[in-house]
């Protein structure tokens, strides 16, 4: 279980958010600039909170009262960015294996072949990111995140740069990842439809505040 209670400030913007995630997917909806990406960056360890805690299971990752701060590379929370951020100088295969090679072998949960099959990317594994389409790139990014055997998967608008047709192609893969891996997922998007399609529970972010969405997601399925 991943629980957090965080405060963060940058200029006039203030974020205050708390929640607890079990396995399964939690969606966060909200307009751009509401702090969704900031929240993911705080959870991933790319930003330091002004105050608060992040606890995974019985491991305290962040506690500002004791000065505990686990850096991003020891958290094993994979973050999938909106525009992929594949390493342009590495092949799809080396991108996929980047996190895998850095993970303690005893902690690895997936093998390359499994993920390649799951995401159907076998045909493009030797290509460079520049030779992949937007949809292919996003699938490789997702595979790279899974292959580092994350304890939680943080998805920041992973479909935002894709057109509707491609979104329809990727969503089933995300659903498959959710159903077959059991990794807690935090899915951020400004699109309600996407969030409701994937998430068991939907939260709303507005002006840096995280609140439960009124109305249950299941109603819209």
């Amino acid at each position, binding site marked *: 279980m991943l629980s957090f209670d965080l405060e963060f400030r940058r200029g006039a913007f203030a974020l205050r958010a708390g929640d607890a995630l079990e396995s399964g997917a939690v969606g966060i909806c909200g307009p751009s600039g509401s702090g969704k990406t900031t929240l993911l960056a705080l959870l991933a360890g790319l930003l330091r909170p002004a105050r608060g805690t992040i606890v995974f299971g019985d491991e305290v990752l962040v506690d500002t009262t004791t000065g505990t701060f686990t850096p*991003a590379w*020891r958290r094993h929370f994979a*973050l999938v960015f909106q525009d992929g*951020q594949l*390493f342009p100088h590495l092949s799809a295969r080396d991108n996929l294996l980047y996190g895998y090679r850095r993970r303690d072998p005893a902690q690895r949960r997936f093998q390359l072949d499994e993920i390649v099959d799951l995401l159907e990317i076998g045909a493009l594994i030797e290509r*460079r990111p520049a030779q992949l389409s937007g949809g292919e790139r996003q699938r490789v990014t997702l595979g790279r995140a899974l292959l*580092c055997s994350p304890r939680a998967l943080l998805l920041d608008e992973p479909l935002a740069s894709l057109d509707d047709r491609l979104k329809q192609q990727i969503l089933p893969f995300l659903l498959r990842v959710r159903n077959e891996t059991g990794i807690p997922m935090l899915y951020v998007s400004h699109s309600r439809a996407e969030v409701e399609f994937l998430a068991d529970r939907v939260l709303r972010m507005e002006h840096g505040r995280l609140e439960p969405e009124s109305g249950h997601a299941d109603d819209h399925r």
Partner: protein
Amino acid sequence: MTAEEWQALQLSARVALWATVACIPVGVFVAWLLARRDFPGKFALEVLVQLPMVLPPVVPGYALLMLFGTQGPIGRWLDQSFGIVLAFTWQGAVVASAVMAFPLLVQPIRVAFRLVDARLEQAATTLGAAPFDAFRTVTLPLALPGVIAGAVLCFSRSLGEFGATMAFVGNIPGETRTLPLAIYTFMNVPGGEGATLRLAIVSVALACAALAASHWLTRVTERRLGYRDQQMGRA
């Protein structure tokens, strides 16, 4: 070419090579600091790095003599502790060249670091790479064309170093008389016209060779890094 001319050419090549080799690790580190970090005194470091480029070259040469000369505080310490003498030796010429060429090395590397998307480094850290690991496997490879461009500029500038070398290590045949100093010397010697012309031609040839090598290396690196695929993909 006479033996004396060859000697100047070989000495120049040796000095420029060592200056470049010595500058690269320091230059990469300083360029990274300037491109990626904010710290107190950053502006002072920036000024210090750029200073040799905007000063008359004899001034850094004079400063080196004051600091690293046999009577200078650092020079005396180096001599007494390690037996290293820089003043009026070819090693001193390396130091003079390195100081003068350093800004030209740092500038392209710094630009190259800036152009590497910092989010790629963040992606690397969320995938389990500690900062130096991310630097080694993501930032540095992507900035490699800039490092090569900087190294070539540094090498070329070292070959042409004149003022600081003259001030710090003098013009000693076989020890500190590099190509430009030899040309200058021959220009002031009656009957030296032939040697001057020959060495001038050699200088032009060396400069052209360095530029061609840089062009080729950059192309190879860019292809290896996938920049070329990208251009084709977009066309």
